[in-house]
């Protein structure tokens, strides 16, 4: 069964009433699909129910990968393949000269964690070269704040009232979409 949903843009001139509106919408049980702002607004993500990022877990895994790769590389080059004796410090085993390996391990950890995080972020947001901008109203890149909603008729009325009560400058109806039920 397909449902029809109304697309609503609530446009605000300031972030404070916009955040207030988000809070009210959420407490009325309405899902805020997306908010477009000209600058990052602190506390907004938790307000509209965006789950906490898992990027930190990725960073840890990437860092660990970098550490292992560097260790493997140095062990192969300096110990296994051709044991080097540098400054009277023979590399018959890895731990013989481990202080000398620490800076490289550290740099590789940071390198892999930072690049992995950046790439994961860009891919996850699909910000690859050639991506088209997705903001529905170009004024959000200037000075407007936009709450984007996709709601059924009953919720639309409620949302409309909440948006107008909280000093929305405009409430724009941008047509409907049909969502096919997945099951």
């Amino acid at each position: 069964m397909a449902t029809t949903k109304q697309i609503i843009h609530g446009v605000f001139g300031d972030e404070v009433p916009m955040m207030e509106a988000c809070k009210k919408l959420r407490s009325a049980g309405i899902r805020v699909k997306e908010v477009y702002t000209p600058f990052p607004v602190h506390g907004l993500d938790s307000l509209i129910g965006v789950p906490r990022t898992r990027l930190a877990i990725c960073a840890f895994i990437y860092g660990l990968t970098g550490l292992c790769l560097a260790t493997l590389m140095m062990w192969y080059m300096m110990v296994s393949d051709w044991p080097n004796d540098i400054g009277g410090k023979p590399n018959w085993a890895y731990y013989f000269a481990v202080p000398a390996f620490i800076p490289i391990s550290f740099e590789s950890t940071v390198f892999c964690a930072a690049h992995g995080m950046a790439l994961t972020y860009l891919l996850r947001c699909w910000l690859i070269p050639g991506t088209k901008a997705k903001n529905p109203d170009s004024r959000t890149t200037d000075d407007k704040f936009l709450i984007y909603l996709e709601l059924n008729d009953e919720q639309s009325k409620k949302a409309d009232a909440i948006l107008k009560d909280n000093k929305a400058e405009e409430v724009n109806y941008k047509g409907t979409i049909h969502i096919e039920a997945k099951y």
Partner: protein
Amino acid sequence: MNTDKQNFIFTSKAKRVSFILMAIGFVSIICMFMMDRNDDPHYHSNRAWANVFIGAFFFMAISLAAAFFLGLQYAAESAWSTSIKRVIEAVTMYLPYGLSFMMLLFILGQMQVHHIYPWMDPEIAKHDKIISGKMGYFGIFWWIRTILYMIAWLWFTFKLRKNSLDADKLDIDVNNSFHWKNVKLGAWFMVVFAVTSSTSAWDWMLSIDTHWFSTMFGWYMFSGMWISALTTITILIVWLKKLGYLENVTESTVHDMGKWMFAISFLWTYLYFSQFMLIWYADIPEEIIYFQTRWESYKALMWTVFFVNFAFPMIMLMSRDCKRNFFFLMFVGTIIFFGHYMDIIMVVMPGTVGHNWTGLSWMEFGTLFFYLGIFIYVVLNALAKAPLQVKNHPFLQESLHHSV
């Protein structure tokens, strides 16, 4: 908001705790001086004096680094820390006491009562070739520098505090005049401290091992005192919040203090390890001697310091939830506080006690308690003297709504 929690009240219970610590410490210092004997004719209660010196330096360094941190917040015009400014100020108020202890020890050293600084001994200064070559830098020039550091640090610390208190007296500070004064002071303090933190570490701590030298040593000492100050401030904030004070300090501010503890632990590790690694790699006898004494007689302490101050905070403070958990902050903070006290022990002891070291004992803890008691008393007393929240600060509102 709870109005009776605007001012910190230094309860008789807290006073009693600080007095008990002082009493335990005092008794154990006396016992330490009576028992610290050795067959070695060159041993003049070195361990006892070194302990007294370590305690004096460690707590002085905490308040000094807190003053640096306060100046840094002004110079960077950061907003997040505004709501905890009074706590940092209270920690800086121990500085005159800490410097007095240091001065007293320096004077006693010059009078040859103790032998922490070999170059203060006129016999050694004359006959030791390396030290006699360095006497242009020590001697009277050293004293001039010492006095200049003390005057400069005290002047900046008291000026920052005074401006902050004066701003509270006004109903409304229209031009933020006191804030701008402190921004300028903070920026100048950064310039002064950038030089004096290194040179004072060379003069006061590095010169214990007079033959040895390391240009990285100043930063190593600085990062150590910085992390000690950050843990002290964090523990104080968490404790005050548990007592119901600092209600409007957000969890995010405490979280930021946790981040600082995490980050500066790494800064310390970075400098500690870099100094070691470069010397280990170059393998020059006159440099390697520093780590050789530590490796031979202080191996357990060396590894403990490294793991407690590096691996422990790294694992414990990595996740966001840990940095927001008061119990965790208190637990990790307490342990790395002691960890950095051990770090100072490891800096001072090999140059004074040398191979007579027998491992940590009640002597170290007793002396620590003595200074801790005084420190707690002075800091809490300073905290009770002013409202816990600054009034006329342009970033106060931003700080109270701080969220990360």
